[in-house]
């Protein structure tokens, strides 16, 4: 194991962090929630910087980034609660990049449209509760026979949900959509496994970013706020919980990075590591957000304070990206082959 970042990786991380810091302040997160549920403005900035095409191979006009490098940007996005389908676009780019050929009508789809991924199989010709479904003009959808790209001109209406995102249902038997099959049969099954693994590793990194940010908020507030004439963080009952969180977050980050690295090195273990990573990151993020809220005392549940933004999104991200499906897959694997 070598945990040294290359100079290039270090620069990339810093530039992502700086970009989100500048383009996605918490006011933008609140504005998006109050208006269309996502941030077209931020999306444009990310597209201009080529970040939405990170996962696409260079031969197809993308950046050809390794999945590990993509986790850096996913973490920065999570840290700023970025209301855009960034990890979807990266996973979609990687999916298209793996195919031997892409039908002409969907070539360039990642750069030309806002693309989302339905993280569970199509059911009754519908993709339900698709994260960023109301932001997207195109969608990656699949079931056990096929992988599709679905396109439409008019936006799908947003379903109100707890985290105030741009969640929507996509009906595939609707006249206004055009579908293109990009994989069938055994290739479809293989591609959806790889897609799910990519999305799980990226989700894990996004959740790590959210958790780290919630921890920062809790550290700052408890160091400042005084009770019984001392800073709240000087109490061990507070400090030690934050220490446990910091530890779990570092571990979650390493597991997400290990999963991403392993997936790209064609190790069979990549798929199950991605499921492990997102399962652990989801629990860690929700724990971090909950603690952050709790340590803000009564202010924690006031809407004008930020902890509730993290609390709702930590739960929503895990549910919308179907983390439980990954956990279930690990549990099922244990009954079949005893694990590993």
């Amino acid at each position, binding site marked *: *194991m*070598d*945990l*040294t*970042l*290359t100079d290039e*990786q270090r620069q990339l991380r810093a530039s992502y962090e700086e970009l989100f810091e500048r383009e996605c302040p918490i006011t933008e997160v609140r504005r998006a929630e109050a208006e269309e549920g996502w941030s077209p403005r931020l999306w444009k900035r990310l597209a201009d910087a080529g970040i939405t095409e990170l996962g696409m191979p260079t031969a197809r006009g993308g950046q050809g980034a390794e999945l*590990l490098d993509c986790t850096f940007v996913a973490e920065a996005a999570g840290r700023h609660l970025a209301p855009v389908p960034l990890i979807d676009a990266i996973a979609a780019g990687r999916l298209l990049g793996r195919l031997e050929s892409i039908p002409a009508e969907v070539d360039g789809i990642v750069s030309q449209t806002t693309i989302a991924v339905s993280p569970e199989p199509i059911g009754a010709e519908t993709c339900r509760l698709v994260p960023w479904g109301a932001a997207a003009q195109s969608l990656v959808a699949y079931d056990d026979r096929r992988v599709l790209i679905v396109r439409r001109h008019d936006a799908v209406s947003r379903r109100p949900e707890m985290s105030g995102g741009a969640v929507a249902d996509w009906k595939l038997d609707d006249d206004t959509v055009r579908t293109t099959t990009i994989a069938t049969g055994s290739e479809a099954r293989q591609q959806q496994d790889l897609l799910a693994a990519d999305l799980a590793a990226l989700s894990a990194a996004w959740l790590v970013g959210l958790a780290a940010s919630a921890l920062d908020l809790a*550290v700052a507030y*408890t*160091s400042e706020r005084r009770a019984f004439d*001392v*800073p709240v*963080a*000087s*109490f*061990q009952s507070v*400090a*030690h919980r*934050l*220490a*446990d969180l*910091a*530890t*779990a977050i*570092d*571990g*979650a980050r*390493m*597991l997400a*990075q*290990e999963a991403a*690295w*392993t997936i790209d*090195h064609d190790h069979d273990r990549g798929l199950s*590591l991605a499921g*492990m990573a997102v*399962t*652990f990151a989801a629990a860690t993020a929700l724990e971090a957000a909950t603690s952050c809220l709790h340590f803000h005392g009564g202010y924690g549940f006031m809407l004008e304070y930020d902890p509730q933004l993290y609390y709702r999104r930590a739960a929503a991200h895990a549910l919308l990206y179907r983390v439980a499906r990954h*956990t279930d897959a*690990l*549990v099922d694997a*244990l*009954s079949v082959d*005893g*694990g*590993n």
Partner: protein
Amino acid sequence: MEFGESAADREFRIEVRQFLAEHVTGEVRERMRRTGTLHDADFARAIAAKGWLSAAWPARFGGREAPPPNLAILYEEAARVGAPMNGVLGTQLVAETVRSWGSEALCDAVLPAAARGELVVALGFTEPDNGSDVAAAKTRARRADGGWVINGQKMFTTLAEIADLVFVLARTDSEAPKHRGLTLFLVRADTPGVEVRRLASLGGETTNVTYYTDVFVGDDWVVGEVNRGWDVLSTALLFERGAQGSFPAEAASVLDAHLTWARERHGLGLPSPLDSAVSRHRLVTAMIEVEVARLLSQRAVFLTRLGRPPAVEGSMAKLFATETYQRMCRMLMEVSGPAALLPHGDSESVADGAVEHAFRHCVVETIAGGTSEIQREIISRHGLRLPRAATA
């Protein structure tokens, strides 16, 4: 950044596995179970003969002046198979400390014997009245002609029953501030006035309380400068960080043994924890946490090898790995039914008693080497820079 193992490391791991398979025999294990002494003279000599531990030492002290192999792999693999490493590790810790702080004469007295695997050193830091607060040591060393006279008691001097030397932390200046009046000594265990009383522990491991009554130690056996014992001790404890992979390796080995047992029963159509979705879910949670523990430990080892002492990262690794191990042991008992109570040797025991033993043994790990509370203090005050409470 990469998560795979280098070719050199992989090769070393294979070599280590072969060595352990050959030397950690059923007979060695039985002897450890019977005596509670996790040291074996033949094993210690055999591992020393491989030259791994002393590779970096000067030739005149028994080394080869060569870059050492990745010893973290050795500690990890040894923990995985439950090798008798207590004496080897304690002695290595002291040898490395002597190499950094000891005089030429002391190096000469300690290192060649350690390189041959013929020296056992027990650690004498903790006392009956202080554990985590190591610097509160009350054992006193008083100046005498040509040396020092030690009086006091040390707790958990594991292996003192067979040790050649005890590494004793004693107060040499009672006027100085708490951390400035301490000195480390190497005391021959057969010196008149040293008395060893055995203590039995829940995990089956023997430890001791040792008493020191007017024990004379020559000036040559002072490690580092007088009254700078705290600095010397810090070097010694840093060494432990490099061996940290042993915690998750131990947990992984118990989990593997349990899964093998559960799978076997499942395959035979016998009741197994794998029959229950709830138990499987709990096993998956443990698998994930053990992997996280392994990664955090590997990070601490990685930083140690870079020469960057991983204070906070080391505490995170120790905290997470040991707490995970305990959670896992409780869970493995709970999902296994009453057979989990049966000991090694009972044909119906779970994984040949591995789970029963781990459940008793795991409790020491959140205590020894700095309690979880100490680790959380280090992480929160040094890592997160949270304000410290005023102490009395």
